[in-house]
C-alpha cells in the first residue's frame, strides 16, 4: 500500500524515478509490468469479491430461510444492486481513505448482491419434498439445512458467484480510479489521461481475457461440485 503512494495517477512518468525500493524501476509501464498490474488487481478482486461472496451466501441462507429477514433486507439489497459503483466510490474514499480499503470494499459491495439474491432464491426454492424426505428419516432442523438446503441451493449459488465475479470485474476500473496504481484498472485510467490508446486497449483486453479465464475456471468448479445439475 505504501509503495503506491508515490504514483498517484496523473502525475506522469517524470515522477517515476522517485521510487527507490523497486529493483527494476525503469521497466514496464508506470513502473510495473502488465503482469504486475493484473496480479495486483486480481488480488483485490479475490479479496473483495471473496468477502462479498461470503457475505452474500450468509445473507442468502438467512434470508431464504427466515421470512422476515428477507422482507427486511431484500429492498436494501435491490437498492444496492441498482447503484453504479462510481456513485458510492467517493463515499468510500471519504470514509476509508485512498489505500486498499475503499477498493476492496467497492468490489465486495459490487459482488455481494448477485450472490445474496441467487442464494436467497435458491434456498427459498428448495423442494419441500426433499425436506420432508429428510424429516421422515429423522433429520433435525440443522441436519435439514446442512444436508438438504445447502446442497440443493449450491448450483444456483454458484451461478450467483459467477455473476458476482463478473460484476466485480466490471467495477475494477471504478475501484482503481483513485490511487489505483499498480492495478490494471488504474493503468487503463492512467493511460486514458494521456490519450494512450494502445495501453488502454491492452488493459481492456487483459481484463477481458483474464475474466474469461476465471469464468472458465468457475464453470469447471461448478461442474465438479454440482455434477447433478440438470439431472434431478
Amino acid at each position: 500500500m505504501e509503495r503506491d503512494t508515490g504514483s498517484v495517477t496523473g502525475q506522469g512518468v517524470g515522477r517515476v524515478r522517485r521510487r527507490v525500493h523497486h529493483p527494476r524501476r525503469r521497466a514496464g509501464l508506470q513502473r510495473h509490468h502488465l503482469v504486475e498490474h493484473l496480479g495486483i488487481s486480481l488480488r483485490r478482486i479475490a479479496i473483495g469479491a471473496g468477502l462479498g461472496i461470503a457475505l452474500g451466501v450468509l445473507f442468502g441462507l438467512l434470508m431464504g430461510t427466515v421470512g422476515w429477514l428477507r422482507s427486511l433486507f431484500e429492498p436494501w439489497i435491490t437498492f444496492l444492486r441498482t447503484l453504479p459503483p462510481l456513485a458510492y466510490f467517493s463515499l468510500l474514499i471519504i470514509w476509508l481513505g485512498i489505500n486498499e480499503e475503499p477498493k476492496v470494499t467497492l468490489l465486495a459491495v459490487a459482488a455481494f448482491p448477485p450472490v445474496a439474491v441467487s442464494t436467497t432464491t435458491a434456498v427459498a426454492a428448495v423442494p419441500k419434498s426433499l425436506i420432508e424426505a429428510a424429516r421422515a428419516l429423522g433429520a433435525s432442523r440443522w441436519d435439514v439445512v446442512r444436508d438438504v438446503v445447502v446442497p440443493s441451493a449450491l448450483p444456483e449459488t454458484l451461478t450467483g458467484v459467477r455473476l458476482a465475479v463478473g460484476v466485480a470485474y466490471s467495477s475494477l476500473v471504478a475501484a482503481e480510479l483513485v490511487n489505483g496504481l499498480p492495478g490494471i484498472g488504474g493503468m487503463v485510467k492512467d493511460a486514458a489521461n494521456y490519450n494512450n490508446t494502445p495501453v488502454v486497449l491492452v488493459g481492456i483486453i487483459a481484463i477481458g481475457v483474464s475474466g474469461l479465464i476465471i469464468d472458465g475456471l468457475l464453470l469447471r468448479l461448478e461442474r465438479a461440485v454440482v455434477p447433478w445439475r440438470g439431472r434431478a
Partner: protein
Amino acid sequence: MPSSELTGTREEVDFARAGSVRLDHVTHRYGQGGEVFTAVGPVDLTVPSGEFLVLVGASGCGKSTLLRLIAGFERPTDGSVRVSGAEPRPGRTAGVVFQTPRLFPWRTVRGNIDLALRYAGVDRARWPERRAELLARVGLEGTEKRRVWEISGGQQQRVAIARALAAENPLLLLDEPFAALDALTRERLQEDVRRVTDRTGRTAVFVTHSAEEAVFLGSRIVVLTRSPGTVALDLPITLPRGDIDAEELRVSREFAELRAQVSHAVKAAAAA
C-alpha cells in the same frame, strides 16, 4: 415432549404394541375461513402390530392425507392419532416411502443410505455392515457407488425403501410407491415389500388405488369413500403369507375373487 417419549410410560414401551396405529375420530381439514376443505374423516381405525393394512380409494379420497397424519407430518384438525401409543413424530415413529423416490441427487446410492443411518443414530462403525444388509434386502447389491440418476426408476424406489428401513422403525408407511413404475417392476417390488414386512414382522400401512395391489399386499384392506374419506369397507385378507409362490397366488381363484370384491367396493365408494 421428547423426554417423556424417551423414558416412556409402560404402555409406550410395551413391545407388543410397537408399530400399532390408532385413529380416534380423526378429521382433517385444509384451508381457513370460507375456503375450508374436509379431506378426510371422521375415521376410526386401529391397526394392530404386525398387520399389513392397505388403504384403497379413488384419487382425492384423502388416503394420502391419512398417511401424512400417521407419519406425523400433519396434525389432525379433530380427533387423535397414536402410533405405538404416542403422538407420531416424523422420522421417529415410522419409516416413510413416498410416491416418488425423493432421493438426494447430490449423494450416491451409498450416500443416501448413509444419511438415513446417521439420522437413525446408528454407530458409524456399523454403517458398512448395515448398508450392505439394507441394499441386499431390496436387491441392490453392487450399486453403492452409482449416482441416483444413473439407476432406473425402480432401483431408485428400492433405494428409497432401503432408506426407509434404515431406522428399523416398527411401522412402515408407503404412499402409492409403485404407481409410476412399469408393471413388471411393480410386481417385483410388491413381492419384495411383502417379503420384507413378513420377515421382520413390521406393521405397514400402504396406500394405493389399485385393487390388485391391495389384495396382493394386504393382510387387511380398508376402502375409503370419496372425499371426505371415511371407511366404506374393512376387509381382512386371509391369503397365505410367508414363503409363497407369488405367481401362483396372483392367478389363484381366491385372489381373483377378492380383487373383484375390492374393485367393486372402490367403485361403489367413489360413486357414493
